[in-house]
């Protein structure tokens, strides 16, 4: 097991390097840089600025300068925001995180329950209704359903705020502040949950269906175990194994920010920063954030493999 973990760990480091290299060059090769998009600069001024920002150097040199800085813990300085990338991301990423975390928790809980329920009552009316609703929810375009909910709950009923994270001009602190943010979170979290619940429910349902047809479940039932014990103790454990991989993939999603949702709800998350950094070619932000997400993806994968090995002896034996 130790060797397996070590092996995977070394692979992970190599992949990270490779990723950083590819990402850097892909972005650097996109046409136009931060200075180019400003058409009004005189060529002399543009040249001066490029020299000041180091954009006039050859690509390879820029990569190694950047890499060297990363090793010293310096992720760079945002051209657009004129502040260090670390403090910039730190300002916004947690706002995205709390929404994503809550949505993740809700999605998994609800999906687990509905998935299992519709599996054990396969082809029943309940199964039909659940299937219908989860498919309907995941089929709506997010901007449409967001705007619809804003109209219903924000404009017509006036029970929930239209957007933002706090009330305009609010100075609340402590518990009042938490309540206020909570109120603003209801709509974004609901919508994120609605959108992602569908596919997950299907995973749980399928996983469960496969397991309950197996012999050992019949044996368990034949032993006279209670149905709830059969389902939740014996079947569920095996049914959720494949889903570990899925959960690991959710890790980067917790930090990446939901671009459309954040935009519509004025949620001060990191999604907009990311989008802006692409359109303005703000390389330091773009690089730091993309690398951060790929790190999380790779770490998530690593964790999935290790957890898998831990919970499923069949994998370890190989």
């Amino acid at each position, binding site marked *: 097991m130790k060797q397996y973990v070590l092996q995977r760990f070394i692979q992970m480091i190599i992949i990270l390097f490779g990723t950083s290299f590819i990402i850097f060059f892909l972005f650097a090769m996109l046409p136009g840089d931060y200075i180019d998009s400003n*058409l009004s600069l005189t060529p002399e001024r543009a040249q001066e600025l490029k020299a000041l920002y180091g954009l006039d150097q050859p690509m390879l040199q820029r990569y190694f300068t950047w890499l060297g800085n990363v090793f010293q813990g310096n992720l760079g300085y945002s051209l657009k925001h*004129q*502040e260090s990338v670390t403090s910039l991301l730190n300002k916004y990423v947690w706002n995205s995180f709390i929404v994503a975390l809550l949505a993740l928790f809700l999605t998994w809980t609800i999906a687990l329950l509905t998935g299992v329920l519709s599996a054990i009552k396969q082809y029943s009316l309940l199964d039909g209704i659940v299937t219908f609703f989860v498919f309907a929810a995941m089929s709506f375009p997010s901007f449409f359903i967001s705007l619809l909910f804003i109209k219903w709950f924000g404009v017509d009923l006036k029970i929930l705020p239209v957007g933002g994270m706090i009330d305009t001009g609010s100075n609340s602190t402590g518990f009042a502040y938490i309540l206020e943010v909570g109120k603003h979170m209801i709509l974004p979290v609901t919508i994120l949950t609605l959108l992602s619940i569908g596919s997950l429910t299907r995973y749980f349902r399928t996983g469960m269906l496969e397991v309950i047809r197996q012999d050992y479940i019949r044996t368990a039932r034949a032993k006279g175990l209670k149905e709830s014990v059969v389902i939740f103790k014996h079947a569920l454990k095996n049914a959720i194994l494949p889903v570990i991989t899925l959960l690991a993939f959710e890790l980067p999603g917790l930090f990446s920010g939901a671009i459309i949702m954040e935009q519509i709800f004025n949620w001060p998350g990191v999604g907009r920063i990311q989008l802006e950094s692409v359109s303005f070619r703000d390389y330091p932000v773009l690089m730091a954030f993309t690398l951060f997400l790929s790190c999380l993806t790779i770490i998530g994968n690593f964790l999935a493999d290790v957890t898998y090995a831990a919970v499923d002896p069949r994998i370890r034996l190989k």
Partner: protein
Amino acid sequence: MNGGLGMKKGISGLILLIGLLLLLSACALSSSGDEETKDSEQKKDDVTVEKAEEKSYKATDLSVLPDKTKARKDTFVAGISAPGGVFLPYFYENGWDGNVTTPIFSPLVDLDKDGKPVPILAESWDTSKDQLTYTFHLRKNAKFSDGSPVTADDVAFTLTLLHDPAYTGYQDISLAEIKGGKEYKEGKAKSIEGIKVLDDQRIEITTEKVNAKALLILGGQVLSKAYYGKDYEYGKLDYLKELYSKPLGAGPYVFSKYVPGQEIRYTANGKYYNGKPKTENLIYKIIDKATSLQQFETGELDYASFPADDDTVGQLESLKFANVQVAPVNDYGLIYVNNTRPQFKDKEVRQALLYGMDRQKIVDVRFKGFGQVADVPVSPVSWAYDNEGVTQYEFDAKKAKELLDKAGWKIGENGIREKDGVQLKIRYLTADAEDAVIPIAKENYSDIGIQFEPEITDFNALVSKLSAKEYDFAAVSTSQILDPSDTVEDLSTDNPNNYVGYSNPKVDKLIQEGLGTLDIEKRKGLYHELYKEFTQDPPYILIHYRQSARAISGQIEGLVPDNYTGIGSSLPNISI
């Protein structure tokens, strides 16, 4: 395309022009009693306004004001799009941060609603006979919000700072050509020869070339030397980063708090030279265009600006508590035509391209009655706008065919015109996937034997193709036009940013003359000449002037948004 860059709102405006809030636009509200009337120009403006069909709707029922609005007795909330947090003029990289600095930092000179300079922190200014030397007379009672007076030293410091070799901001001070500026930047001189502090209230600045745009560059927002200059060393500006989030200026409002991604809060400045503003609190709330209407409807905002269309205007009107103004915006949309390509070299071909495209239809489809076909390269709100004697190029396929025939482009293979082995094919670059030009121009042009292929691309890619002159047609839009020269100067033959590849000696001369005098009346005549020449020998295809709808909550008084400063200039007068 040079529009307004280097000034506050310009920077991001170039890129995103879809419904930008606070990228404020036309107004010419007739009730602006505090404006001095300028006889002859006033008349001109009235003509323009009528043409652009300005509409306004008054609030009819203040009792339906949302509770949130009614509850605000001393706070004014306006919408802003996406500020970034660098609240220092000349140093921010995001145009929205410029809007945030407007209430905090007042300039020496600003523009009025017609785009003409007006004194703010300067009481007045004189220019020498040769138009090279400017003397600014500062107001005696102008103070920074910490109580210290605004002096000529502060102005000198601000201008010197912009000449520092480490300065990376958007302001290209070299355009003002202050005497000795270059030497200072290169480290050959200890100070800038052309900047002379005469006494506390008077500063004299000598430039080397007459430039109509220099006044605004020189008379920009003033930074306090005591606050921003205490750690200044030549070639080192990093210390300023500490102060980006702690602005201090001489404007009507004092910065109090920035909640990232949410709002910026201000309080009234008791030290403001023109008296403390009537409304104690000001909030710029960050909103998204997708829901700004809902924000306004629920009373989260007192002021917002929307792209004009029937739905939005109708809905704003039906709220009953809003004063709505629909008016032209200070920019225009156009299609760059690469004059260096053999197909587009002849002016007859470019004329034919204008006649052959149904621009009225394009504008109608895109703006649904809230736009008009552009005829001269400046917005109808500018003092320079004059379309008398300008050919309108109304859609006329027959004329287009005649012109093409005359120029020697004959129908060849597959019905596409050709001449000397070159086919008349157009590749059209646009960053807008729903560009109304695509279907209409494709149909129009194929009727007259021109092949039109659209290519939807990312804006940066479009720009890089523009600067490499590797394009046929490219759709762009100007940012806010502060000076009529902004949009035309890159068309002069030797301008390095002449992406169109246009060359016309008469135009070169007129552009130079237009910049080479400070006399607005004279400039008007010159630009009119220039616009007439442009319709004879069109450099590119002008497409649209658009309109915006601005909504002001009914309980707000004294807010008169204009096309040059937005709500900036009326901030001190707002009352509830």
